[in-house]
């Protein structure tokens, strides 16, 4: 499948943006400037970017507690994202949500979720709505390997299958669910095997190969748009950071983390591919990293100089008609 040069560079920039965003978030969290807790997706940029590179602005995405990357890849505004992490009134949710609850409904992001697997039943609903409204949108839900063991996953997948809803179930198998290794919590080798139980196509993909993710997603999106129903994609990847920032990580050997980091970094792999294909040079890559850095600095400046919400703002937004 051929993807033009401009698109490839756009994807590279997206991955770099996610990496830098997450790195920044980790630093400011450690410095005590971001309240609550945050879950970073460093090392999983291939999945978020590869999938969202196939989507239109009017397609839907439901994301997770580890959702910054999905937001960015779907086109979210960095300023409003950073401001939300900082709890500022200029944030996406006016400070009501924080990292775990960012959303941008104007670009089809139906929300991050603090409840593991919370997005799956909702995405079936978005798919049903697409079908009832007779548009050719698609609805994508991201979830983790841990999430795939919750009951609502199976109810949603079954319903999407029987009604041939235009839904993509994207499980990001990053090997760990908090302290629990994937292989302990599920008897399957490839999580895409679950798809067979609902008679939908299932694909297991090298999630750190952004082009492989894109290629598979293009197939699944095309099928969904043509009314052929849902697919499941398993992006095999790895969680480089702790489950949450500050996680003591006694459950895993840091050597395992280092191996993934050094031998299988999705950004480095894509960069090498682009350089080899003469689409990117080291110099051009540096320009992109610097431009992204400048954009993030501006977002940070925006967030830091923004005011906190007023305490009484807490009482707004509960009902449309109170």
């Amino acid at each position, binding site marked *: 499948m051929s993807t033009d040069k401009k698109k490839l560079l756009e994807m590279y920039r997206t991955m770099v943006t996610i990496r830098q965003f997450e790195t920044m978030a980790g630093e400011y969290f450690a410095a005590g400037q971001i309240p609550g807790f945050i879950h970073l997706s460093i090392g999983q940029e291939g999945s978020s970017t590869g999938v969202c590179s196939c989507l239109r602005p009017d397609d839907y995405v439901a994301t997770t507690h580890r959702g910054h990357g999905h937001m960015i890849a779907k086109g979210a505004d960095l300023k409003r994202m950073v401001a939300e992490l900082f709890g500022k009134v200029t944030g996406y949710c006016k400070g009501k949500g924080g990292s*775990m609850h960012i959303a941008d409904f104007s670009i089809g992001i139906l929300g991050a979720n603090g409840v593991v*697997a919370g997005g799956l039943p909702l995405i079936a609903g978005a798919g049903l709505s697409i079908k009832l409204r007779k548009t050719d949108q698609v609805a994508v839900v991201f979830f983790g390997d841990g999430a795939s063991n919750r009951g609502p996953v199976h109810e949603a997948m079954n319903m999407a299958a029987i009604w041939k809803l235009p839904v993509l179930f994207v499980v990001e198998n990053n090997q760990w669910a908090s302290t*629990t290794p994937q292989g302990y919590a599920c008897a399957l080798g490839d999580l895409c095997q679950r798809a067979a139980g609902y008679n939908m196509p299932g694909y297991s993909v090298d999630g750190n190969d952004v082009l492989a993710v894109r290629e598979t997603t293009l197939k699944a999106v095309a099928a969904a748009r043509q009314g052929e129903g849902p697919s499941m994609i398993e992006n095999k990847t790895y969680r480089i950071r702790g489950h949450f920032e500050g996680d003591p990580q006694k459950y895993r050997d840091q050597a395992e983390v280092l191996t993934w980091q050094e031998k299988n970094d999705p950004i480095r792999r894509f960069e090498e591919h682009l350089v080899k294909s003469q689409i990117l040079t080291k110099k051009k890559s540096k320009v992109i990293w610097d431009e992204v850095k400048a954009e993030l600095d501006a977002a940070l400046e925006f967030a830091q100089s923004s005011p906190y*919400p007023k305490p009484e703002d807490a009482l707004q937004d509960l009902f449309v008609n109170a």
Partner: protein
Amino acid sequence: MSDRIMSASAALAEALHEEMARDETIFILGEDLTAHAGIFGQFKGIPEKFPGRILDTPISEAAIAGCGVGSALTGMRPIVDFHFSDFVTCGMDEFCNQAAKIRYMFGGQVKLPMVVWCPDGAGLRAAAQHSQSLEAWFVHTPGLKVVVPSEPADVKGLMKASIRDDDPVMFFQHKRLFRREGHVPADPEFIIPLGRAAVKRPGKDVSLLTYGSGFFLCMDAALELAKEGIDAEVVDLRSLKPLDMETVAASVKKTFRAVIVHEACVTGGFGAELAARIQAELFDHLDAPVLRVGAKDVPIPFSPPMEDFVLPKPADVIAAVKTVCYR
């Protein structure tokens, strides 16, 4: 025997160690328990001391709750760790339609000795889905017992009683209080029976009826009120079901005024139930309406100024007390 100073977390772990050593049918079930001894470190030493009796599960709340119910029906005494109390919604059928009703529906044939441990409460900037206080839902479900300890000694004594109880117990423990320290008796038979409140600060002017994190708000408020010449009695209810109405009545008959304080939002909260009972049973003893202090009726917002605004504070308790004391 002497008291020791320990944290609420340590008090919980001690209760579990003692009970698990005493009765080998007790086991613990839940997500992410063994690697870090629970996500809050609350099960310190248990994975090493009782291997095979603290089980890591997949993220499968309905099945976790169900395994609790099913194993309790068949001779075990499960302690089900629910990670964050907010996720009780994911085990609601097993708790409310199964655990709460099985003994009754089947005409009292079986016992269901299960403890559901639910870390709850706000103040950690954890936002709407990780900060709730949901105890009232379960008080509203006949067949479940509901326990909400405040100080470390209560945690220990009530956990031991809950484990020994033959009925399902929802046990809510506030996340922000895990590290808070207090005196805990060393006696391994120190048990606080369910349904027994404690008058933790005697007073004569007003009864502050509270539980969980509300207890500390009340103690802070009582100190301030004392400076203004108002002598508040603080009653820690400790268990909401069964409820120690006798201790409540004795207090109200002495002070003629009651303010109910909890962290959960006011509307439909446990305060509503207690206020109704006080007016029905103690009407002649009241010199003022019963007031309630709790969180504002919104989900818990993330940003610190808003979260702080939503949660009840000692100042809110003081204001309510002054209203009922006509000051």
